[in-house]
């Protein structure tokens, strides 16, 4: 379930290019009522984006992000819906915490938000949360994101018991005894810089375990923020043998490699880490083929003073809600690495389907979830500030091509440039 502020839906007219045609879309009280041919325009109109992986830091770290600021950032990034991860303080592991969040979202969310609940109490990896009650109260899915479910036994129980909820189980794959003390991908660059390595196998080993458990239990599973070639290979093998596995990848893993860490900029430190060029190529190939169906920002805001420290002391995570489209348009579509239509699909329909949400579409009778884009405009990231409360963007200062001009979310105008 998604939650946002109530209020009157809007009447709007948007004109833009959809595929090869230029259309005029009329929205009456939040619903698309008419689609007509229009005169040529340079603007692009698309189903608005869905971000399956956002950290809203609320409750606990409202200095870094709130539901209001995070959803405003999402609207500015072209998103009509986002899913928030439960690794907050306290963890979203009870109906009480979830209920408080959904109430806040009803009061201040600019775009609809879904809240995932934790798989284990306190994300401690020992006891299952009350998944049934949490689902009844509107949990959008279950995840211990930020931490792996280290116990295979508990993971199996989550797959078994989670079946009663009908919700997606999303897993952060990391074998902690292999990633321990790792600050970046283990390889040539970490050897030279002296960082403790977080090897690819720390991810792919857990991916293989979770896929094996999902196969054995005959249950679907969603793999969060894949980073390693071996993980993509394991995913594709499982999909080939009939496992209902979906996966997501972040813009930073698609655009950067571990070479970026040579700058020692704390804004390229994230978990999972940036990996080698061969990993990036595999992620891109998976995204193109569709084995990886979703792009997720893994928007992870951090207070400035926490990132303004030596790389080795900095926390993992970067922001992304406001830059996903432009980053991928600039770094993948323009150089010809990814077709625009594929990018738009992986930003919208792919993630919606992974969580059983109705995909945004441009069709008469559909609720208006639209984004209007200018693919000619350039802008400098950080210029004019962010809607997010945090500024730990890996793109800070970069000039990107592609701007969000307007976002309509659930029939309401959520953002206009």
């Amino acid at each position, binding site marked *: 379930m998604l939650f946002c502020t109530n209020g009157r839906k809007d009447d709007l007219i948007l004109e833009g290019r959809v595929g090869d045609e230029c259309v005029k879309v009329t929205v009456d009280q939040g619903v698309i009522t008419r689609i007509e041919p229009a005169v040529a325009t340079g603007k692009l109109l698309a189903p608005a984006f869905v971000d399956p992986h956002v950290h809203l830091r609320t409750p606990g770290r409202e200095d870094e992000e709130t539901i209001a600021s995070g959803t405003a950032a999402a609207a500015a990034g072209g998103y009509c819906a986002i899913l928030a991860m439960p690794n907050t303080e306290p963890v979203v592991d009870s109906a009480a915490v979830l209920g408080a969040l959904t109430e806040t979202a009803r009061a201040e969310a600019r775009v609809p938000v879904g809240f995932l609940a934790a798989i284990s109490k306190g994300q401690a990896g020992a006891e299952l949360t009350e998944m049934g009650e949490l689902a009844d109260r509107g949990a959008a899915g279950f995840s211990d994101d930020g931490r792996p479910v280290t116990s295979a036994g508990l993971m199996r129980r989550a797959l078994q018991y989670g079946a009663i909820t009908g919700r997606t189980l999303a897993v952060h794959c990391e074998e902690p005894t292999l990633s321990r003390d790792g600050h970046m991908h283990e390889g040539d660059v970490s050897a030279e*810089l*002296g960082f403790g*390595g977080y090897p690819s196998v720390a991810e792919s080993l857990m991916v293989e375990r979770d896929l094996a458990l999902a196969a054995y239990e005959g249950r679907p599973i969603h793999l969060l923020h894949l980073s390693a070639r071996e993980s993509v290979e394991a995913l594709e093998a499982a999909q080939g043998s009939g496992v209902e596995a979906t996966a997501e990848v972040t813009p930073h893993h698609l655009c950067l490699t571990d070479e970026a860490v040579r700058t020692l900029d704390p804004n390229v430190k994230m978990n999972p880490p940036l990996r080698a060029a061969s990993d990036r190529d595999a992620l891109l190939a998976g995204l193109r083929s569709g084995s990886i169906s979703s792009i997720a920002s893994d928007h992870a805001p951090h207070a400035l003073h926490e990132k303004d420290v*030596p790389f*080795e002391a900095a926390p993992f995570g970067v922001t992304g809600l406001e830059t996903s489209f432009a980053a991928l348009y600039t770094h993948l579509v323009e150089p010809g690495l990814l077709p625009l239509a594929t990018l738009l699909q992986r930003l919208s329909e792919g993630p919606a389907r992974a969580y059983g949400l109705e995909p945004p579409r441009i069709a008469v009778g559909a609720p208006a979830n639209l984004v209007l884009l200018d693919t000619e405009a350039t802008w400098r990231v950080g210029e004019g500030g962010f809607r997010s409360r945090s500024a730990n963007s890996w793109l800070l200062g970069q000039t990107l091509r592609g701007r969000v001009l307007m976002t309509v979310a659930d029939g309401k105008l959520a953002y206009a440039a």
Partner: protein
Amino acid sequence: MNVRVMRDDLRPPGPPARRHLISIRDLSREDVERLLTVAEQFEASLEREMKKLPTLRGRTVVNLFYESSTRTSASFELAAKRLSADTMSIKSAGSSVDKGESLKDTALTLAAYDPDVIVIRHPHIGAPQLVAACTEARIVNAGDGKHQHPTQALLDLYTMKHAVGRLEGLHVAIVGDVLHSRVARSLIQALALVGARTTLVGPPPLLPRGIEAMGCETSTEIDAIVDADVVYVLRMQRERMQEGANYVPSLREYTARWGVTRARVRPGQKVMHPGPMNRGVEIDPEVADAADALIVEQVRSGLVVRMAVLYDLLTTGPAPVPAEAAMEVA
């Protein structure tokens, strides 16, 4: 609106670019050769009765040490004093760092005194870059985590050059815990820069995956040191070995397999160690005290090489040794 436009060619020339010594990667072969030549000139000056040179009079050098150090902090301080600079030494213990002040705030506080150089040692990789970004000072990295310790590599080159007579084609075996060693990382790069050959020798878990890309060979057999002109022994960094990490089963087994003992070095083979030594662990006391050991020479080189580094950063950069220096050391 008041908009003033100035053509670029009408702007007054800016000050020369501020330079730092954060990583050996920042240096060219010419830079290294220049620094070693300047160090030689300073070495000659140390033989005089009046050891102090007026070169950096009025300059301020801050030594900011977040980790314990004997030889590095002492030699930077003495190097600055020998060049007549004013020095301040700040250690994390007993300063506001103890009260939880962040590195950035400490750097900004020190920057208020307009230091010309900040020499920093810090347990975290990336600390020198942070201080470089938030102050106007030239930064000398005196060790950041497991990343770099460039002045150690320079003093090691200086020591090797003087003991063996050449650097080009020299074969150096670096033995021990490469994984946790910033000394090794800087030295591998420095040796590659001057055309020496490097072989790393140690237990497999302590030879980082991918290290060969830095331009060296690796071996897990101690016999691989036999061909080397110089055996460079690394300290077993017990404080960096987390409990249960199992890099080696025991120091006893390490010493038995990779300890540098008299039986394992050839007569005439030079032996070096960055200190502090764990005698009886990575190096046998007999080897450490033998005539072929250059360990005391390394310490002596540290002073003149650090003088050269401070001098170089505070004069206008990659040019031949300026006449001023030649005059003073003459």
